[in-house]
Structure formats: C-alpha cells, structure tokens
C-alpha cells in the first residue's frame, strides 16, 4: 500500500509544472557556467595559481572535467535548497489549498503512511534533481573538458587529487549532498503539514536556512556551541570528501547531525499530521 502511495505521490510531483523548474534552472545555470569556463576558464585559474606559477610550472591542464564539475557543484549546491523547497513545500499544503487533502486522508491508508509516502516522494524528487545536476555538472563537463587531476582549494590550501580517485569521491559527495538536501526537503514537508498554502512552507524553509546560515557564519562566541549542531553548518560537508586525507570523523559527525534533523523533523511531522484537524 505504501509503495503504491509513494508511486502516486511521485506521479503527482511529475504532473506539476513547477517540478520541472529545478531541472530547467540547473540546465541553464550549468550551461552558462560551462560556457564561461570553456571560453575564459584559463584566466579564472590564473587568478588562483598566478603566484604559484611565478616560480613553479604546472605540467598538465588544471582545467578539466573534474574541476569544472567541482566548481559547478560548489556554485549550485547553494541554490538547490530553494529548488527542492519549491516542490516539497507544496506536498501537503498544496493538497490543503486545492481541497484534496480531506479526500486523501479518507483513503484506507493511514495518515502516517500517507505522510511517509510524501516524505518518500520528496526524497525521490531530491535524488532525481541531484542525479540531473551530477549528469550535467560532472558528466557533461567531462565530455567537454576531459578527465584529469582535481585541484581543490580549501582552508588547508591547494590539494591535487589523482584523477582515478575523483569519481568515487564525487559519488560519495553526491550521497552526502543528498542527505543535506533531504534535510531541507524534510523541513519543507514538515512545514507543509503546518500550513494550508504553499508559500508559507517554501518561504519558511528558506528563511530558516538563511537564519541558520547567518548564525553559522557570525563569529560570535555565543553561537560557537550552537554552530556544530545546525544543519546549515553541514550542508557543504560534501566538500570535505575532496580533502586529502579525508576527515572521516567530521563527515560522520555531519551525517549524524543531518540524520538527527531528518528523523526529528519527520517525527514531529508525523506526530502533528496524525492529530491535525483537517478541514479542507
């Protein structure tokens, strides 16, 4: 029954035009970035390696598909939460706004199973969106620029990862990025349970991300103890997978924090939706 409901919810997402906005936006943005890097990528890299190349020579091309994929991911992962919230924030509140939620909960499926299938559909949508981003960012970039060693800039400086190690790291990074984005999806679906229109959950999710990001970036001692437990602190944890050596303890902590957020939000959502007085 739950699988059938998940299938139905996924079809409903597919049927909504707004679901394709994310794919369109990603295609356009990645296209623009790839074009810009293909035309002027070398000068962009000169800015990074200029002082290094005063005394040293870099043999081989730094501008390759792996680096371009990494740059694209870095630029777009910031914007993906909005694209995710745009669809997942509408899953319950959209039904309430259209007046179909009451009919929906009259089905033999329990409210919990119904909401779980909504959370499941949100996960499917997030995953498909990320796969599309991966295909565009890494796949197309590799096709245009070719493979090569990945030069990553981080707080530790410049790290050069051998080409053979990059793809497994990308896969792991996408898995971690999925968890981070699913946390956003879980927030917007949970907010969606609380509202009867779609705008509130979408704007509320983005507002929460902004507030948490601000708290995370403000270097105030008051927030020092809170910062590690905010989900926004771990939204870019996927980048750590490109460090050498990989800081697995940090990554496991990020996975833990994000999982706790997902479970807590889904728990609250299920508890609330189970008792919600549905009037529309």
């Amino acid at each position, binding site marked *: 029954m739950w699988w059938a409901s998940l299938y139905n919810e996924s079809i409903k997402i597919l049927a909504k035009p707004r679901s394709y906005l994310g794919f369109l936006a990603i295609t356009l943005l990645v296209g623009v970035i790839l074009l810009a890097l293909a035309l002027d990528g070398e000068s962009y890299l000169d*800015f990074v390696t200029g002082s290094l190349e005063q*005394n040293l020579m870099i043999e*081989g091309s730094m501008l390759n598909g792996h680096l371009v994929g990494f740059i694209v991911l870095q630029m777009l992962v910031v914007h993906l939460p909005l694209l995710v919230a745009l669809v997942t924030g509408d899953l319950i509140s959209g039904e309430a706004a259209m007046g179909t939620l009451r009919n929906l909960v009259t089905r033999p499926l329990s409210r919990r199973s119904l909401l779980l299938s909504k959370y499941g559909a949100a996960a499917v949508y997030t995953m498909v969106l990320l796969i599309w981003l991966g295909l565009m960012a890494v796949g197309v970039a590799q096709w245009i620029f070719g493979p090569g060693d990945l*030069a990553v800039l*981080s707080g530790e*400086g410049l*790290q*050069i990862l*051998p080409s053979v190690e990059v793809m497994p790291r990308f896969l792991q990074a996408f898995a971690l990025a999925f968890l981070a984005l699913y946390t956003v999806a879980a927030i917007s679906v949970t907010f969606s349970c609380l509202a009867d229109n779609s705008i509130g959950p979408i704007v509320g999710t983005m507002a929460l991300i902004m507030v948490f990001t601000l708290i995370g970036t403000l270097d105030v001692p008051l927030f020092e103890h809170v910062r590690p437990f905010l989900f926004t602190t771990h939204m870019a944890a996927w980048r750590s997978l490109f460090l050498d050596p990989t800081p697995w303890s940090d990554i496991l902590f990020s996975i833990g924090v994000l999982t706790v957020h997902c479970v807590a939000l889904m728990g609250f959502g299920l508890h609330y939706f189970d008792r919600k007085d549905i009037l529309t």
Partner: protein
Amino acid sequence: MKNTQRISVGLMLSFGFFAVMKADANAWNFPFCDVRYEENYGGNELLDNDLQKDAERLMEKLASRLAGLRDLQATVHVQADVPRVKVRPLTAEMFFLAPNRFRIRSPRLALLPRQNPMELFEFLKGPQNYRALAMGQEKVRNQVCLVVNVLPLDGGGDWQLIRLWIHSETARIYRAEMTRRNLGTVEAGYFYGSNSRTVPGSNIHQDLPDSLLFELDASMMKLPKALTADLHRSNSQAGTVAVRPLGAPDGKARVAMGFRWNSVNNGAAARFFGAQKQD
C-alpha cells in the same frame, strides 16, 4: 731625593718609550700592512692560481662531458613540497633534445621548477659563454668540492650568476645556486649513483644525476583567501599545519626529481619531438 730622581727617570723613560712606539708605528705600521697585503695577495695569488687552474680544468672536463648530452629520455619520479599545496608524488617521462627542447609527459598534474634540469647543463656546454672563477673549497655531503662562480659574459642575458660546487676529482656538480633574471635564485642539489655511461663510439662519460633537489623561494606564493576560505569549517578545523614531505624550511619550496635514464643519445627524444611536431 733618590725617589724623586727615580720617578723623573721613570717618567722620562716612559715618555721616551711611547714617543718611540708612536714614531715606530708611524714608521712601519702601514708598510707592515702593505707587506702583509703583498704577502697575502701573493699567497692567495699562488693559491688562487692553483684553484683557478683546478676550476678551469674541472669546468673543461664538465663541459666536454656535457657536450655529449644531446638526446635524453628518462623516467622521472617527482615529489613537490610547496607551502599550502598538497600534491602526491608521481612518475612521468622526461625528454630532452639539445639545445632547448624539454618536455615532461605526465599522466597527472605535476608541479615542477620553472627552470628545467637540463638548462644549466646546456649553458655550461659553451665555455665561451662564461668565465669561471674559483672561490675556494667546501665540503658538500662529505665530499670536497671546488666552489666555482660562473659569470655569464652576456650581461644582458637571462643568466646572472651561477655558483657551482664541483667535485674535485670527478667534476660532478654536487650543488648549484643559479640566479636568473626571470626566475630569481634557485638552489639545486645533485645526487649521483651508478649512472655513469659511456657515449657509444667515444670515451666520453656522462655522469647523469640520479636525483635532483630544487629549492626555491616560496615566500611570495599566496593563494587567494576568498577562494580558500571555507565558511562551513571552523577555524580550528581549517588551516592545520600541513606536513612538508621534503622538509622544506618556511618560505621555501622544494621539488625532488629522481631519474631512471632509459635512453642516452639513442634518438628517443628526437623521435618524441618529431612525433609531436607531426601531431
């Protein structure tokens, strides 16, 4: 009375002594220095002459040996130690075709010194391009080496000054300090093993180094902070001191290159560059 006489005699003697000393000093101090200068100069001249002859002999030996290096191909293992840059060692192929065709074919991104390892050899091949001056003797890795300053005769050229530490017997370069207009000062250590080869059809021996260690100034190397800053990592996590694989001191970068010479003057590099030209 006796005491007064003694004191006055004493005073007179003292004055007399100081007067003589002063006059004497005026009389022979400078000539003495001149003599010393002459002696030293003469001695040094003698010493320098020996050293200078040694230097010229060694440079001649070195140049004739290097002249035989025309076409080289080697497998090269590269390890770079650059501040705030982490790059793993890699193995690549090196081709050199005299006078100036040099290429490292690497399957991966490699950080190499701007000055290629053969440029010094190529410069030293032409004794008409420089003047060698012996500067003394020093020990490098427990080997007695002659320190030779190589002054390029073309003042406006790229090479400004080369200081070489050359083994007194084998004429192998053990250390080099090269100052170039475009690249600044680069130090290089030359390490030798069993790579003594004879050029086919001649008696020329080439002592190719087993490995080279370049050391260059990295104090001006900076990475843009806007790009390296990681907002999602706290200060305690980011910016940890990286391990320097070659133990380069602060502000310095080192690049080590280990060679396995596969082909000497067998046309491998000519074939490689020829094929490249056709491509």
